[in-house]
């Protein structure tokens, strides 16, 4: 077991030219000198001696951390804790941003970010939009997660790990460094390194006989087949990505691949499909004879002026006899208008209600939105009362029919209110009663 008798120890010239005892034929050069210890206590003095001799590229390798040795070696405290602090703060900020943004901030209005990257206000359980206390667990966990990842990967990076090639790991004796031996190594690239004088210095440290650490002069090229295999493997690995990219972007005649069905496609008959179970071969069943849908009762024999807004087959220019224009009727009309119409047409009838406002904010996919007609357009002003009544009853373009929701009297009340709205936007001072006219002039 004596190191002096080791077959690996040789004279200390730093000439290139390899060692006969190596099985491989490549030329090697001296990478450093190492000296072995069998006891951690001797290391402190040895480390101090090497440090005092002015060496900088040297190290002590031990099977377990020998406390105090880093002081003897003059290793400065590591900046790792500061890096971990930065990592932890990053995690904390990430957590705060993630929670407050995704559950509170919508950036869609001007399409700053793609739809699937935008957050949105997530109202739930009556909590405020930014409920920071409820986010603390997530923020805390992300702080710890980021700190821990920084600690581990920062430590490895600062230690230069993983490094699978190291001349020391080629030394058979050095394998005992993970068992029970301690090694002091001075590298040949240290400016003070000199094969002979360094060896003399190391010999006096109380360890074993210094031993050469050899490294090949030139690194071996990886074999050709390995490079080819690597290129091929990379190309094959790209195929699924290309297929996915094509599937996502191409137009296809067939339905897309639907792996998990989730009851999306069910065995059932849809509206326009044929169904052989019925005599007429249709899946969609016609109404049973005598069925009347809500709002479909039209007594055309009675007062069509009142029920349809028609006089002699043309739109009625006047209100029907059953409708008396007074303040009550206009108030009723305002009430119904604000409930049924203002969502699209707006409280002032200019066609900019909340539904319109939501659809005009540049939200993707709503370019086809048709703005509701303004009540104040000349075309609407020119329409007969009966025409407006008919539009309310039966709808027009994308506007649904309200005949089933609003009583006939209410529809006429809305017509009256619409007229009042139109009047209000085109009124002159002479339309205002005398007593109020003075008030207005005083302003």
């Amino acid at each position, binding site marked *: *077991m*004596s*190191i*002096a008798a080791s077959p690996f120890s040789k004279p200390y010239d730093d000439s290139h030219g390899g060692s006969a005892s190596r099985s491989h034929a490549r030329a090697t050069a001296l990478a450093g000198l190492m000296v072995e*210890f*069998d*006891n951690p*206590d*001797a290391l402190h003095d040895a480390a101090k001696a090497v440090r005092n001799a002015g060496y900088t590229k040297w*190290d002590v*390798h*031990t*099977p*377990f*951390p*020998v*406390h105090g*040795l*880093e002081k003897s070696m003059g290793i400065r405290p590591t900046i*790792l*804790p500061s890096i*971990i602090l930065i990592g932890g703060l990053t995690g904390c900020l990430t957590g705060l941003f*993630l929670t407050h943004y995704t*559950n509170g901030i919508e950036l869609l209005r001007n399409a700053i970010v793609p739809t*699937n*990257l935008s957050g*949105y206000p*997530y109202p739930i*359980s009556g909590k405020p939009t930014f*409920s920071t206390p*409820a*986010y603390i*667990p*997530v923020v805390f*966990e992300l702080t*710890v*997660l980021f*700190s*821990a*990842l920084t*600690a*581990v990967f920062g*430590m*490895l990076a600062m*230690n230069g*790990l*993983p*490094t*699978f*090639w*190291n001349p020391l*790991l080629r030394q058979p004796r050095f*394998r*005992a460094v*993970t*068992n*029970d031996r301690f*090694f002091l190594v001075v590298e040949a690239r240290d400016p003070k390194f000199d094969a002979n004088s360094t060896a003399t210095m190391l010999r006096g440290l109380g*360890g*074993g006989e210094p031993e050469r650490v050899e490294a090949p002069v030139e690194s071996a090229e990886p074999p050709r087949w390995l490079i080819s295999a690597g290129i091929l493997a990379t190309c094959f690995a790209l195929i699924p990505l290309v297929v996915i990219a094509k599937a996502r972007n191409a137009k296809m005649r067939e339905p897309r691949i639907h792996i998990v069905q989730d009851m999306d496609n069910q065995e059932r008959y849809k509206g326009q499909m044929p169904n052989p179970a019925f005599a007429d071969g249709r899946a969609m069943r016609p109404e049973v004879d005598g069925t009347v849908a809500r709002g479909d009762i039209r007594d055309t024999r009675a007062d069509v002026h009142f029920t349809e807004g028609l006089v002699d087959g043309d739109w009625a220019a006047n209100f029907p006899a059953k409708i008396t224009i007074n303040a009550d009727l206009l108030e009723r009309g305002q009430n119904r208008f604000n409930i049924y119409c203002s969502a699209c047409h707006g409280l002032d009838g200019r066609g900019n209600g909340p539904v319109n406002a939501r659809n005009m904010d540049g939200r993707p996919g709503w370019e086809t939105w048709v703005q509701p007609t303004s009540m104040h357009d000349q075309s609407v002003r020119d329409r007969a009362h009966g025409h407006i009544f008919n539009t309310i009853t039966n709808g027009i373009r994308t506007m649904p029919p309200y005949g089933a929701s609003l009583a006939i009297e209410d529809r006429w009340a809305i017509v009256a209110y619409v007229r009042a709205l139109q009047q209000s936007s085109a009124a002159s001072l002479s339309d205002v009663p005398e007593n109020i006219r003075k008030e207005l002039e005083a302003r």
Partner: protein
Amino acid sequence: MATIPLMEVDNTWDDPRKRAPLVTGNHDYKSVTDLVADVAERPHPPMAWYALFAVSLGLLGFLGFCIGYLLLTGVGVWGVNQPVAWGFAIINFVFWVGIGHAGTLISAILFLFRQNWRTAINRFAEAMTIFAVVCAGMFPGIHIGRVWLAYWLFPIPNQMAMWPQFRSPLLWDVFAVGTYFTVSLLFWYVGLIPDIATFRDRATNKIKQGIYGFFALGWNGSTRHWHRYERAYLILAALSTPLVLSVHSVVSFDFAVSQLPGWHTTILPPYFVAGAIFSGFGMVLTLAIPARELFGLKEIITLRHLDNMNKIILATGTMVGYAYSMEFFIAWYSGVEVERFTFISRAMGPYAAAYWTMFICNAFVPQIFWFKWARTNIPLMFVVSLLVNLGMWFERYVIVVTSLSSDFLMSSWWPYRATWVDYGMLIGSFGLFFTLFLLFCRFLPIVAIAEVKAVMPRPHSLGHGHGHSHGHGAAHRAEAH
């Protein structure tokens, strides 16, 4: 390797003038390495290993069958329904994640308190943590019903432009358990690096050398590396300590943040954390006792280590017993009728058998560890550790099932009955756990070799490079620092 002594060496004395050795037998650095590495290097593990592995693998296969059956059929194969929608899956989740707490506690908290005895058991307590969290993570994963949508749990930008609801305790759980698994894995792996390097350097064939060499990352024991390594390890311990307390607190929020009687209490977070440590130490004992017998590690995992763990079981078991009693007191003191009813029905209602199994196993049985003869009696402590595991499973059963099955409205009460698939998955999860654990025992260093060496007495010889054997008689010296 060193011979296994026929007698247990008693190092459990309490004489403060003489520090008890943490490694018994006449060991030096090399023999400690040999002792631990032998577990992985011997050509054949003990027959008992094969027998246990076969059983575990069989159970794991059965678990796979149950999961396949569940996925192809739907969650109707379980006994869950309204109002008990959580059932075995969540009981098992809380049970396993609780067990996972001892590993990090031993690694981190005992490390910060400079409890050097942790070095013998921390490695496999950490491994146990990771495997337990794997089992734990599986259950909510399959409990969501449509497992292929599990990615909805995470804040991943998706085609639906939907985000998770960050105010929900269930979402906090995803982050807590995910972080816990990641940090535990990192902590375990960082601790393993120097020992994997030991295995690399002892490898007898190229394949082993290549695999261990890859995972050792080129570790060469440099003091400059050790310096940063120890710093990182210390900080990881400091990070893991609040983490381990937060994880089971967050798990308890799943219950405490709801309005259900028996769940909506502020005692739940500390009560869950104490229970988690209690069950974790129970499982460490259950694993450590057979492992030290099978692999000849009695000189590293000594009687003193077992004695210390029994003291922690006694302390945490008593805390859990206090929590059980305090829950009852608060239910009465609150004056809330439904709360009172829930607790009375726990003790005397349809689930009384589960309740008393829990109470006796967790609060009463560990009290035997007040006596030193009990703390040093290995068969007895093995039985106690099994009862602790049993009791802690029933604790979660009582919490989940009793509160859900009978809440405020009598019209929505419905009893819970588990199906064979529920039981199959519970048993199968033990198969998963033990399969992973037995593979770990066979292929990785089950004791932190480098750390044990650091707490061993230094060799006597101020050697001059003439490697004769060291350390004889050193074991009775005081521990080095």
